[in-house]
């Protein structure tokens, strides 16, 4: 899966947990939680969806590495690669 495909998937799954948010307006290098009203339950559901869709298990210790769209995509690309 290419980085572009991962980015598209991440945006779609984020949109699923925060359907009212405008994903097109998301700044990729800014903290997602500062831009979208999501809580820890939303974040967990997002990560569960990532796991289900991409088959990538994300240890809890790695959660701090996944704060922006860019670093999520980078993290998943490295794991998928």
């Amino acid at each position, binding site marked *: 899966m290419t980085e572009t495909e991962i980015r598209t998937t991440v945006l779609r799954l984020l949109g699923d947990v*925060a*359907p*009212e948010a405008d994903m097109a307006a998301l700044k990729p290098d800014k903290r997602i939680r500062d831009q979208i*009203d999501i*809580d*820890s*339950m939303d974040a*967990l*559901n997002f*990560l*569960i969806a990532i*796991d*289900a869709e991409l088959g990538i*298990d*994300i*240890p*809890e*210790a790695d959660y701090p590495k996944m704060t922006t769209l860019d670093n999520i995509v980078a993290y998943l690309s490295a794991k998928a690669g």
Partner: protein
Amino acid sequence: MAEFVMPILGADMEAGTLVAWRKQAGDRVARGDIIAEVETDKADIEVEVFLDGVIETLLVREGEKVPVGTPLAVIREEGAAPGAQPVSPASAPALAARPAPSAAPKAARRVVSATAGAAPVSPAARELARELGVDLAAVVGTGPEGRIQRKDVLAAAHAPREAPTAVPAAAERQARMRQAIAAAMSRSAREIPHFHISSTIDMTQAVAWLREENERRPIAERLLYGVVLLKAVALALREVPELNAVWAGDHPEPRERIHAGIAISLRGGGLVAPAIHDADTLSLTQLMSSFRDLVQRARAGSLRSSEIADPTITITSLGETGAEAVYGLIYPPQVALVGFGRLTDRVVPVDGAIAVRPTIVATLTADHRVVDGHRGSVFLAALDRLLQEPSTL
């Protein structure tokens, strides 16, 4: 026979709109079945039935808005002959609160009396109703003692159907939710003598235990630390049971079962606080599963009536948005609310030395008519103690 009435689904709920029937006349229902969808000012609720039987008659049309306590359907309980018994008011309170008879709306009086047999139906009218597909429960009888005659059936058949209440736009729903919250919280501030006490709890043990626990779990089974707090609250309530109660007008009524109302913020604003039933008896895994399910359904607008009506205490956490502590208002008729602030590192004394530890401020807001600060403090101490032994939760 038993009446299935519009339940009260919030402290200041006065009426609800019957959005849809999930069951029809003649359907068998069992306790816990979802029988209808009701729209309140705060949410769409799936309403459950609390007995086993067969639906005899549906009394309210989809789209109608009726006051709390209005009979929505008549249910023939298991073993009763069809149409053999009058509606028994005595059986109805088991379903939901009922208003005084004088407060019953015109529509409710009409349909109940017809169902109960007080307004008889002439054989010709009954046959005509069957031919025309007219629901006799919705026909107003004009004969002696309200007897339904052929002309009444014809009038009903040709009468324009009442336009169902339009599904309100999001903005209108939002405004109505705000009004509902305003009403409940104004009542709370007006009627309840609140007091607040707080305790800063060292979360080192809980955080470490949770980290280790989640390392062992697949992602779909991981726990949020809010669930650990929830379980600790539920167990602490066993030690100070007077906090698990409702105020019944002039005295508290303790509740044996602990139904934790979880404050859930809704997308677009507003909140609901549906119950996780028997929270003290559930494992952390079960609690997490219930919590996920509840949040998902709260935001999808598919909560159940028991979840709205049953909470015996409310638990809220504002820590994720940065608040250090919560000093809330109690949701009537409950008598307490437990709040949690942000998990944050604080300098604390440990064994005579200074240490930096993850801590959280737990706040108890309680009704001073029911409990005093001493017992509230005992509760917070129990909460603290339980959180120092997370593996026992």
